[in-house]
């Protein structure tokens, strides 16, 4: 594994700053692995090995990685159907994630939930939610539990710009603010809901940040494509929550490279917009930053090679995996493992 020892930093103060090289390598590794894994998901979908639908996070890796590194083990995350990146960023395996997308037995939920409901309790991923806004109050509940039991974990809730216009968003923010809950709300503003630009349907410019004041919260907008920026704001928000300071609402500006879902070629984007944002590709930005810090090319290459190797291994493992046994059809409707509604 690469470490700070491998780097020769021309600028010592940069290398020894608040983030540090070790953590930066971790941030880089996560973004690269998320990117590679999501691209593989794209291909598998074309090969019809991934069925149904899939909402990719290509271009939005920095938000997931920044928070993933900032969060502690024990912190709880809740995300939307665009949750592959967030699931990987908390440490779930590629074959668990890809396997779930491929609806195989090796998947995180053995194919029971599918792409939109990725869950890995051991990594703190307490569900991915397909109904817009549903998980915001749920994150509040998790935070309420921490507050009630005096536990020190923070609940982090990821959602898109479209969520800011649904009722549950407003209920959850008010609720969290009034009860001063240890929850962090993270809005990934990628400028589009499904096919409609968010600006056309929202009364304010920044769909999340411009609503914060309504709930007595600070207005926070950050560059969501810079993992260092995300990491820093994440750490601050987590610490505030952990110390009883209450909730925050963070708007991360980012962009998705592909359509809303695999079915969407995203022709609604104005010409040139994608190209502009590709210049702000978070992986490209971060690779450059590592070089600026003097991290050797071999080190960078090793991370990227390892990522590709892991993706290959995961793909093979998933392809080799059977689908779940048919008994799972009626398993786990109720706590007893079954589905009996009558005697």
């Amino acid at each position: 594994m690469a470490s700070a020892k491998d780097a020769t930093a021309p600028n010592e103060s940069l290398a020894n700053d608040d983030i540090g090289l070790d953590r930066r390598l971790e941030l880089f590794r996560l973004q690269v692995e998320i990117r590679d894994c999501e691209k593989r998901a794209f291909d598998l979908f074309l090969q019809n090995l991934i069925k149904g639908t899939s909402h990719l996070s290509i271009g939005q890796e920095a938000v997931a990685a920044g928070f993933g590194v900032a969060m502690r083990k024990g912190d709880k995350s809740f995300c939307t159907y665009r949750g592959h990146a967030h699931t990987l960023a908390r440490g779930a395996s590629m074959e668990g994630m890809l396997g779930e997308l491929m609806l195989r037995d090796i998947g995180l939920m053995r194919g029971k939930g599918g792409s939109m409901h990725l869950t890995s309790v051991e990594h703190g991923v307490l569900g991915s939610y397909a109904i817009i806004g549903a998980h915001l109050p749920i994150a509040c509940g998790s935070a309420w539990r921490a507050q009630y039991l005096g536990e020190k974990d923070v609940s982090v809730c990821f959602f898109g710009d479209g969520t800011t216009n649904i009722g549950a968003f407003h209920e959850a923010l008010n609720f969290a603010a009034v009860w001063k809950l240890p929850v962090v709300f993270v809005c990934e503003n990628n400028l589009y809901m499904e096919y409609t630009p968010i600006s056309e349907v929202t009364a304010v410019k920044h769909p999340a940040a411009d609503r914060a004041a309504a709930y007595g919260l600070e207005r926070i907008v950050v560059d969501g494509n810079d993992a260092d920026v995300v990491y820093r704001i994440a750490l601050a928000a987590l610490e505030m929550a952990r110390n009883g300071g209450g909730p925050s609402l963070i708007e991360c500006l980012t962009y998705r490279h592909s359509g809303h879902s695999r079915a969407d070629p995203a022709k609604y984007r104005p010409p040139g917009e994608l190209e502009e944002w590709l210049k702000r590709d978070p992986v490209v930005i971060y690779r450059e930053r590592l070089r600026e810090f003097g991290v050797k090319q071999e080190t960078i290459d090793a991370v990227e090679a390892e990522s590709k190797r892991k993706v290959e291994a995961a793909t093979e493992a998933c392809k080799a995996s059977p689908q779940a046994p048919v008994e799972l059809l009626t398993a786990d409707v109720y706590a007893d493992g079954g589905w009996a509604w009558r005697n």
Partner: protein
Amino acid sequence: MTSTIIMPQLGETVAEGKVLAWFKSIGDEIREGDNLFEVETDKVTIEVQAVVAGRLSEIRVGVGATAKVGEVVAVIGGDMTAKAPVRTEARAARASQWRSPFEEVSTPTEKFGSSKGPNGVRITPLARRLISEHGIDVARLSADVARRGATKVDEAAVRAALAERPSEPATPSVVIAPPPKPADSPPPEGAVISLNAVRLRTGERLAENWRTIPHVFQAIEVDFTRVDRVRKSRKADFQATHGFSLTFLPFIARATCLAISAYPQINARFSGATLILSRDIHLGIAVDLNHNGLVAPVVREAGELTAIGLAKAIRRQTEKAKAGKLSADDLSGGTYTISNNGAFGTTLTTPIINAPQVGILSTDAIGLKPAVVSTPEGDFLAPRMIGIVGQSFDHRAFDGAYSAAFLSRLKLILETRNWDEEFPSDR
């Protein structure tokens, strides 16, 4: 380099294997050829060796869990960080044994006749079931109901019809193995014959008796020539006087009662660990209801009756049985039973005892057979009327010697009794 360990193919028809044990743990260095895990299939239990070397980085299928052939069970040389949870038990199999997902509600499979009577009167589902179970004449009932001006045959109408019967053909209290059913036309290949409730209950009782009573069967060959001589000589008179035919059965019944008086344990019933001998003989006689089942109505105080008396009593009960007019009294209280199977020419039948009785007699066809007759002049072959009489007995009540002695006595009575004395002397 990462290698996956898969569940190997362990036999042509084997599709999956259960992991019984892991011999290595995560983090162990594996050499080629090391025993990795033990797997059980429905044919064999074997150990699986490693075919590559490296560090065991992941176990996907834990002890007790099952994997299909070809499924990845472990990884060598892979990433050591936490992966998807290891499956350690077939939880899914436990989950849905309650019902099939497509059988949440159990539709009954029995059918109980048409929803309309022959005259078009509607019949409720419950009424249809009761009509079938009690063998009620649906045409007559529907006609009666229509005549009364009612619009449907319901439970009340059925109960009323049942009440009007002189006696209820309740389920038989004596259960005997049903004779083979000679069908007019054999049922088509694979036809499904539903058993009605009567048959089902009878079957349950049969099974229970067979299961709980240690049956032993003994048979003895009886020479019915003398009986037959008397029978033939009295036959015409008997028919003229009583209106029905004189068969071997009343003679056998008479002989049985006489033999029982010498061997009273035959005529007993169990009560816990004691055998209660019955003073009276209430003789059950198996009656074939035209191949629609068997009942065994009881002739009470059979020991007091002569052969003629027995003939008449047996006849009365048989007629009642065939008309469906047996009462509960008719079917209960038997202390011993005779199963008369001769009508179709069979040689031997081993009947099932009807608890709480401890024995049951079987008789089969009586016909001319070559036999050795001993005379003072010597032994000669002669055609004689021969039939086999057998007894299934409860070995807890008495043993073979006793039963054999009883049968021997019965044979003696049948072969040597002056049967003419059973009949009125004046002709």
